[in-house]
């Protein structure tokens, strides 16, 4: 029952949303193609001769490429680890009866709320003692503190939405709980798993504080790299935006691929 007029307004509003979402990204990309002189022109110019110099410089002279690879390794590994640890826990929270279940759930979620600033220094000192500074594994582990809760939160909810009949049917056929999880419930919880994977990836990829404090060069992450250009002395805007673009692109591709699952997986239904 939608009239043409309301349809028109819908399109206008949707276009507005799209524009607001996309514009900063567009500006970032165009700025990254500007030389410093063009970038500083006031008022800003929209049409100019693009240059890839910023990218060349960032990637090859400043080692952004290396940090991107580091970030990729870390984000992928921590996401996988969070899934491997979190999915079974979510299954147990959704399917098993045991005492203290709600408290356990809340404790998991609580970890998401701890400020990295609290954990950073203790973790730094511990990592130092274990000779784990500037290693990928350190970040992979510490990122669990915010990824695992997200995985458990979203996936528990998805598991709860799967009819319990299916478990029983499988149990009657002799499937173990592990088989039930892997073969029956996990495929059906895929939207949630995908969403939690996206978020884990995004959160890990974007993380700055731990990256700054726990790495130096070998495992330096891309956001830490981007921030390191921020010397108060002469801001290379083009290069910073080029680095930023390089940082955003991979996670964007990943998120766009999985965006179909986003809505189905984000029901966040059962907070209890």
């Amino acid at each position, binding site marked *: 029952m939608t009239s043409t007029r309301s*349809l028109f307004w*819908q*399109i206008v*509003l*949707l*276009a507005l*949303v*799209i524009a607001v*979402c*996309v514009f*900063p990204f567009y*500006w*970032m990309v165009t700025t990254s193609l500007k030389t410093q002189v063009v*970038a*500083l022109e006031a008022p*800003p110019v929209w049409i100019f001769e693009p240059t890839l110099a910023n990218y060349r410089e960032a990637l090859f002279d400043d080692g952004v490429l290396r940090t991107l690879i580091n970030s990729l390794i870390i984000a992928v590994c921590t996401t996988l680890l969070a899934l491997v*640890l979190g999915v*079974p*826990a979510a299954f*147990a929270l959704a399917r*098993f*009866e*045991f005492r203290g279940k709600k408290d356990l759930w809340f404790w*998991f*979620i609580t970890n*998401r*709320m*701890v*400020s990295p*600033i*609290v*954990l950073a220094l*203790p*973790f730094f000192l*511990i990592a130092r003692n274990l000779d784990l500074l500037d290693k990928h594994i350190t970040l992979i582990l510490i990122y*669990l*503190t915010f990824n*695992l809760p997200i995985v458990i939160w979203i996936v528990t909810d998805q598991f709860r939405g799967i009819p319990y009949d299916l478990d029983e049917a499988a149990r009657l056929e002799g499937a173990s*709980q592990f088989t039930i999880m892997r073969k029956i419930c996990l495929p059906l919880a895929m939207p949630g798993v995908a969403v939690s994977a996206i978020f884990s990836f995004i959160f890990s990829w*974007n993380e*700055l*504080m731990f990256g700054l404090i726990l790495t130096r060069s070998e495992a330096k992450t*891309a*956001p830490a790299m*981007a921030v390191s250009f*921020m010397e108060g002395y002469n801001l290379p*805007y083009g290069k910073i*935006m080029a680095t930023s673009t390089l*940082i955003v692109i991979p*996670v*964007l591709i990943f*998120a*766009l691929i999985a965006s179909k699952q986003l*809505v189905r997986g*984000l029901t*966040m*239904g*059962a*907070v*209890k």
Partner: protein
Amino acid sequence: MQNRVSKRTLFGFIGPAVFGLAIVGIAPLLYAVWTSLHFFNLTKLRQVEFIGLANYWEVLTDEVFWQAMGRTFFLLGTALPLQIGLGLGIALLLHQPGLTLVKTLCRLSLVLPMATTYAVVGLLGQVMFNQKFGVVNQLMGGADINWIGDPQNAFIMIVFWDVWQWTPFVALVLLAGLTMVPGEVEEAARLETKSWWVILRYVQLPFLLPGLTAVLILRTADTLKLFDMVFTLTRGGPGAATEFISLMIQRVGFRAFDQGLASAQAVILLIITIVLAQIYIRLFYKEV
């Protein structure tokens, strides 16, 4: 349904996660609690001594701490309603039937802000909101607004970016909630009333509550943790206009190196977050 499994099975499933989180989460946290009870300045490690709750006392009586806290909650109180309001609007828009192509495009573009690295948002903010060569002033018809250097404007700018980055998340969560409303229930309501507001308030809202609670918890926790974007955009300035609680803790702990005090601040912050989360769950979360 009843599913009591053996202790061994149960442990097999939750053990690894509990163990993993205990190591990476609890150990440093306990360490932080330990430091918070000591005079613990990184540059004066020879003088470490147990001082009981003195750090906590100092935090609780420190005007600046509470100012930062107040500022943080003011940000939460400004940005979160905007995010929920706009997010709800977008979710409702996307929930309407028809216009599949535009909506798919819109859903895809919603992913953009979410995926943008927080630190990058701050850097981008510096470029776009620059008084002279920033595109924002240009788009506002050549306005000459000093965004970064003016306390009020800087705060508005932070709100803008926070809203830009997180409204899509809220929108998608709420959209997921809307799709949970059984079609026939919504139609039953449409037979009673033409008002979309009535339908939203009385029929759809209950289905949105779980998602909203999740949003409240996550956004509150994240705002209390908010650091990267502000750090790269204003560093808490000008003055203390955008010095939110996490920037303050970072300043105390990593710039003034008073880890004891910073830990006490962080522990208090964590307690506040947890209490708030519990309140949200009690207050808003109702099972449909």
